[in-house]
């Protein structure tokens, strides 16, 4: 597995995602900004309907300093593939074709196009910035909303409290395609994230990065805690940093001990209503996942 490390000291000073209208403290905006700083100016980006397109392309304010386009909601990966084909047809070399789609745009409406693009081995980088709900429309449940999370479509009611489904496992889904490179990341561990964007750009095929990118507005946290909560999700073991390439998995961090899941959940308005047995369930699910990763990923 490629161990390339991105040097933040030598990175371009140029900002390629600037002047956007994202909420203060937006994890997704940071994911886009940093990825573009890694990829540089010979980059073509596509973003479907979602927060980052909604805040980046409001005429006449154009927040992308590189070539960028809003794709159809369902068609991020296919539009990227078309762009890659056009680049080949025109003999454009040394360019990056990158997509930034949210959790709904990736795991729900866009999964068909993503699957097709991976299947064809398109030379594209697909980055899912996961804030665990449809935030652009005001926090509705997506396929990546975790169990118990309160959203506007999974309210904390008197009978049902929060999301009744678990988070879909996009990393495993993508890896199961035999993709050239896949990684999970957290915007809280931004050096690791940037390294992964670099490796994605060097993998020579299809790359997928799933970056946890908290939304202070939707999660019910102070804006200043967007990155600390992102780190805590990794530290408590509910999220993990991993890579997949050439059939092999690697865990980038294996905490000796996890920080308490309850502390992580209690800091967020969306989990305020959880009872102790809900939290116990979250801990059991975490342990099962880690058991799986540590035993099934023999090379982890």
């Amino acid at each position, binding site marked *: 597995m490629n161990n390339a490390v991105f040097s*933040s*000291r030598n990175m*371009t*000073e*140029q*900002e*390629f*995602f*600037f*002047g*956007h*209208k*994202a*909420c*203060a*403290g*937006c*994890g997704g*905006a*940071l994911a886009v*900004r*940093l990825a573009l700083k890694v990829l540089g100016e010979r980059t073509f980006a596509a973003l479907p309907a979602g927060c980052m397109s909604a805040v980046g392309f409001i*005429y*006449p*304010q*154009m*927040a*992308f*300093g*590189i*070539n*960028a386009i809003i794709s159809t909601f369902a068609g991020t990966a296919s539009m990227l593939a078309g762009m890659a084909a056009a680049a080949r047809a025109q003999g454009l070399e040394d360019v990056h074709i990158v997509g930034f789609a949210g959790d709904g745009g990736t795991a729900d409406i866009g999964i068909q196009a993503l699957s097709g693009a991976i299947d064809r081995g398109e030379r594209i980088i697909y980055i899912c910035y996961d804030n665990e709900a449809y935030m652009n429309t005001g926090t509705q449940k997506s396929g990546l909303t975790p169990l118990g999370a309160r959203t506007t479509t999974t309210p904390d009611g008197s009978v049902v409290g929060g999301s009744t489904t678990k988070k879909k496992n996009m990393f495993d889904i993508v890896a199961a395609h035999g993709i050239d490179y896949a990684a999970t990341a957290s915007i809280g561990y*931004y*050096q690791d994230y*940037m390294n992964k964007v670099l490796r994605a750009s060097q993998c020579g095929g299809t790359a997928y990065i799933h970056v946890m990118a908290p939304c*202070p507005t939707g999660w019910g946290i*102070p*804006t*200043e*805690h*967007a*990155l*600390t909560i992102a780190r805590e999700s990794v530290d408590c073991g509910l999220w993990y940093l991993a890579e997949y390439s050439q059939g092999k998995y690697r865990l980038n961090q294996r905490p000796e001990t996890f920080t308490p899941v309850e502390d992580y959940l209690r800091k967020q308005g969306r989990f305020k209503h959880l009872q102790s047995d809900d939290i116990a369930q979250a801990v059991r699910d975490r342990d099962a996942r880690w058991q799986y990763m540590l035993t099934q990923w023999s090379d982890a």
Partner: protein
Amino acid sequence: MRRPPVREYPRPNHIRDYPCGPHFQAGYIVDKAAGWRLERPVIDVRQCINCLRCYLACPEGAIARQANKVEVDLEFCKGCGICVHECPKDLIHMTAEGT
């Protein structure tokens, strides 16, 4: 820091003044974000070790990298306060606007 300049946007008078379809110059910035802020970060640059964490962590790209220090671009800082928690030396604190 190389960020796009803030430009005037002359309001079109004629249909020809619009671009042909929804395409426009990349990085064309007409609005600043300063008005979004209730608090602004203040960096004690004298003790700054130039680790660049605040620079990296800013969702706005509103912290400029200098030779041996960092500087907040208050025209685009939204005052989120993320940088406060990224500074390993606790050299950044938020202060209310207008003070």
